[in-house]
């Protein structure tokens, strides 16, 4: 489902003396359907960067990333947009929403983007919000004022409301209590059994071991010079 081959990436900071920061060289790995793969490595090793590259949020210098056979490296923005609507979901650590939009609508949005009927999208959204224990009285409010844990659960609901064949999860359980963490792990298990390909970053080794089939250590992709 997700194939990463010979991937290379560096950052150039033009305003700090054009410093070149190499990140990856020869990154190779793949994720099959029904599989959950954890990215590991020390802080700063590039776990989130790699995930963002797969989502098309960061550009790649060289190599290939194929998501459901679509090449992401050098892809036209429209192809990336299309892929994001229908194929690949991303739960980031940050919630970015238009202020004033209700939580139900924020979560329903990925469904509306693929042309789902608003009434059905809302139902699905409410279903996930109650599963993730977001109190009903908050549904009509904007999530911008929510606590960190609540915002994260809204983000997760957004990621799972549509059945993306491929899913990227950046620290989905970081600020959750054990009850909600188990709900999220249950969602991941269910997605796996439905044949979704999942890449996750999990801080907590016990959580990682619980849902992940394999581990990919991203520090091995670090260029020699930097390492």
């Amino acid at each position, binding site marked *: 489902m997700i194939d990463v081959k010979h991937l290379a990436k560096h950052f150039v900071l033009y305003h700090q003396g054009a410093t070149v920061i190499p990140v990856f060289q020869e990154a190779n790995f793949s994720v099959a359907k029904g599989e959950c793969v954890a990215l590991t490595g020390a802080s700063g090793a590039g776990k989130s960067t790699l995930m*963002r590259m797969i989502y*098309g*949020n*960061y*550009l790649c210098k060289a190599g290939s990333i194929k998501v459901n056979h679509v090449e992401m490296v050098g892809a036209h*923005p*429209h192809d990336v947009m299309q892929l994001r609507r229908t194929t690949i979901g991303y739960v980031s650590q940050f919630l970015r929403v238009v*202020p004033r939009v209700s939580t139900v609508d924020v979560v329903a949005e990925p469904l*509306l983007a693929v042309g789902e009927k608003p009434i059905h999208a809302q139902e699905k959204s409410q279903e996930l919000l109650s599963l993730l224990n977001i109190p009903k009285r908050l549904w009509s409010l904007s999530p911008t004022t929510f606590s960190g844990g609540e915002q994260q659960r809204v983000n997760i609901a957004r990621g799972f409301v549509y059945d993306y064949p491929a899913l990227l999860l950046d620290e989905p359980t970081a600020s959750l209590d054990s009850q909600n963490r188990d709900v999220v792990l249950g969602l991941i298990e269910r997605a796996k059994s439905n044949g979704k390909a999942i890449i996750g970053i999990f801080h907590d080794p016990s959580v990682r071991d619980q849902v992940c089939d394999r581990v990919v250590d991203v520090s091995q992709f670090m260029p020699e010079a930097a390492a």
Partner: protein
Amino acid sequence: MTPLLSVYNLTKMYGHRVGCQDINLDLYPSEVLGIVGESGSGKSTLLNCLAGQLTPDRGRIQFKTRSGDVKDTLTLSEPEQLMLSRTDWAFVHQNPRDGLRMSVSAGGNVGERLMAVGSRHYGHIRTTAIDWLDRVEITADRIDDRPTSFSGGMQQRLQIARNLVTGPRLVFMDEPTGGLDVSVQARLLDLLRNLVRDMGLSAIIVTHDLAVVRLLADRLMVMKEGQAVESGLTDQVLDDPQHAYTQLLVSSVLQA
């Protein structure tokens, strides 16, 4: 999918000074393109050239009309251009006073485009006007008030209603949230996003506010000194800027 609007090598000079130079872009149906850059970067010049309010010196602009024909908008006759600008196109000005008739009631402002394309039934015009005022969250009892009695945010929403009432397919917006309070901006952003999604609108939004484009635009074009220095997916350009100028622009934003 074929583009709704294609621009080739568009150049506008002000004497020896560059307005915008060799701009190429495609806009697809239901897509929002943001154009960012600081004052004087040529983004408004570009927008005005695209919308037919300025005549570029060089280049070509192709627009796919409702009937599916691709037309070169720069060589259209004046009546054809006018027809386009009051049916398929809309222009939202930064200052609502530039886009509204201040001495005409809110209902008259919304109704004008309808009457311009041949509506001759007062009752229907009024019903449509009330419907549109409602969509932009202006209550029906303000329909006979003049925009002079409206707040800045209301005026801007009225301008949007006036522009969208004929169901255009392409909207040009010049700093639509500029000059508004932050809370009013948020309301307007929400409104614009819903309208874009519900009506399948395509839009080109010129702004210097990166937060606005992050929330509204699918794609982004960064302009500096009349040139397009970088373009791509909005979040990619903002999160992984490749050009030195874009990096400066992104890193200069104050984090709230």
